[in-house]
């Protein structure tokens, strides 16, 4: 693929800032979880940052984005404040979902981050529905939805793709294939290794690549987004990636070897971006300044979350129904 998007140092620094913000956010979330400040499930995005940041950077503000329960990175890349994100993890009323959603259910309608969803594959038709609405209204918005390769076996994945292709919906389906469906390697969950082949049965455009850096993500997804925006046609994009942490905080990751993990960490796109910016582009000073700023932002988010009040029971009934409660 030929490079068509700009690649200025300024842009590179900005994308790096976003990636490192997600990573530091997740590391601090893990720490707070270990301290018992965050409850329930916590699925970290560490290792997959170039996908969220690359994708968000080529979307328009009015485009719709939906993702799985591994949703912190997507929300931050989409523009959610780290304060609102961390406060949600802490179950505080200042959180993006008022402390009612939790780690798996980040919502920020202002930024068209339309949710993190906890039922694998269940959000894929929902995302297609947002694209349906755009087409129905004659708008040129695009919807983009993320899911893991673990979602590609369940019915809603297939029904969502089937209907999106049939009705020519402006949507990009992105499979973040991190090779493990919780603790099960893809070789034991799928009869084909190439997830993008599943588009063939629906007559849908497809793309597939092994993620190397954020610019590559931008190039690939820009093409799919353009197809959705100008032709109102869906694309299935498989991005091969890797998560450096377990499926969730309770997962020690015994299903993969330490050697495999170390090998994949050498390909860490965030560290490689840093090395390139510092060594090849000579931007070490700007990097250090940026990283210090990110530390401040994350520390501020944790402090904000800790100091925020909890939601009260009065929120429960008001958020269950629009209008009067139906009892």
């Amino acid at each position, binding site marked *: 693929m030929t490079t068509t998007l700009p690649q200025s140092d300024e842009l590179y620094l900005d994308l790096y800032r976003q990636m490192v913000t997600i990573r530091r956010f997740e590391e601090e979330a893990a720490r707070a979880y270990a301290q018992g400040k965050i409850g329930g499930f916590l699925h970290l995005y560490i290792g997959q940052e170039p996908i969220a940041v690359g994708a968000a950077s080529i979307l328009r503000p009015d485009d719709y984005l939906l993702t799985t329960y591994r949703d912190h990175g997507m929300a931050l890349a989409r523009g959610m404040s780290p304060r609102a994100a961390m406060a949600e993890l802490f179950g505080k009323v200042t959180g993006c979902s008022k*402390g009612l*959603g939790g780690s798996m259910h980040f919502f920020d309608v202002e930024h068209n981050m339309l949710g993190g969803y906890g039922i694998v594959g*269940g959000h894929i038709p929902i995302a297609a*529905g947002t694209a349906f609405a755009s087409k*129905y209204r004659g708008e040129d918005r695009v919807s983009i939805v993320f899911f893991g390769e673990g979602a590609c076996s369940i019915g809603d994945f297939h029904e969502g793709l089937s209907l999106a292709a049939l009705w020519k919906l402006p949507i990009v389906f992105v499979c973040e294939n991190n090779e493990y469906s919780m603790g099960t390697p893809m070789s034991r969950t799928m009869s084909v290794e190439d997830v993008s082949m599943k588009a063939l049965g629906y007559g849908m455009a497809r793309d597939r690549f092994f993620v190397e850096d954020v610019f590559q993500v931008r190039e690939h997804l820009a093409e799919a987004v353009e197809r959705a925006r100008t032709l109102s046609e869906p694309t299935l994009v498989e991005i091969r990636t890797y998560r450096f942490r377990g499926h969730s905080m309770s997962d020690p990751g015994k299903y993969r070897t330490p050697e495999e993990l170390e090998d994949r960490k050498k390909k860490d796109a965030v560290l490689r971006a840093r090395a390139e910016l510092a060594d090849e582009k000579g931007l070490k000073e700007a990097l250090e300044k940026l990283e210090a700023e990110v530390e401040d932002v994350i520390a501020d988010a944790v402090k904000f979350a800790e100091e925020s009040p909890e939601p009260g029971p009065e*929120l429960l009934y008001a958020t269950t129904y629009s209008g009067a409660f139906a009892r």
Partner: protein
Amino acid sequence: MSVMRYREAVRAAMIEEMERDSRVYLVGEEVGHYQGAYKVSEGMLERFGEKRVLDAPITESGFTGISIGAAMVGLRPIVEYMTWNFSAVAFDQILNNAAKLRQMSGGQLSVPIVLRAPNGSAKQVGSQHSHSMEHFYAQIPGLKVLAPATPADAKGLLKTAIRDDNPVLFMESETLYNVKGEVPDDPELLVPMGKANIVRPGKDVSIIAWSRMVHVALEAATELAKEGIEAEVIDVRSLRPLDEQTLVESVTRTHRAVVAHEGWPYGGVGAEIADRLQRLAFDELDAPILRATTLDVPMPYNAKLEQHVIPGVARVLENVRAVLYRS
């Protein structure tokens, strides 16, 4: 006033609301070119075109999810299932997305959607096509459930449902589609949710019913009148929200109640009504509240056995006599 059949009343409500609001559309299997599996949507494709009357492939979960997604960003879909039985494969979408999106987004999103279909037993359609699904859905906070018995209520309540900002599940009945009745012509005459209707006043016993069972209860009341027993028949119409007040007032007058509904007895809406009445009108009751329901078995095919399993006039009479201690 016009005299029309139940199916025509449902159609009239959809047509009027689609004329009024361009965000309303109809989707489902066979709703367009086939003119509706039960001819409820007859003529609507010709009137509104393929954009607003959409034939869907057999993908209940897919088109339910798509419609929930479309509703959450501003459209107002009407989803028709061929019967409520088939909503079982879309249960996850209804439970986890339609009902939950508002609360888990901290109140940022609403899902103004109507799901409608015939419900309950038909004639000898067997075990998998005879479910009374209202009992499953009325349990879920975030949903509203309506079950009109007459053409006038079918029209007036469906219009209210379409204008509501919450997910509303609308239970029709194959056995009621040909029932004729007077229906107001005024397109702004809406029937409010959460209001039961006393369809026959009486002083000796309250028979509480909805949908087809209202007609069965009226037949039973006619029989009872011959014996000098004046039964009050209440058409609940709206199962969630439930009109507690009308039920309590009725039992305060009659001191005895039988809940007559299709569907299994274990934990159903009838059990909920019995619980509320014993809590709210304990001192008024002269007998335990009894329920005349479908027997606690899957529906058999054999015509005589089917009639044995479905609640009919005889079972209502038997229960009424029991609460009057006349059996």
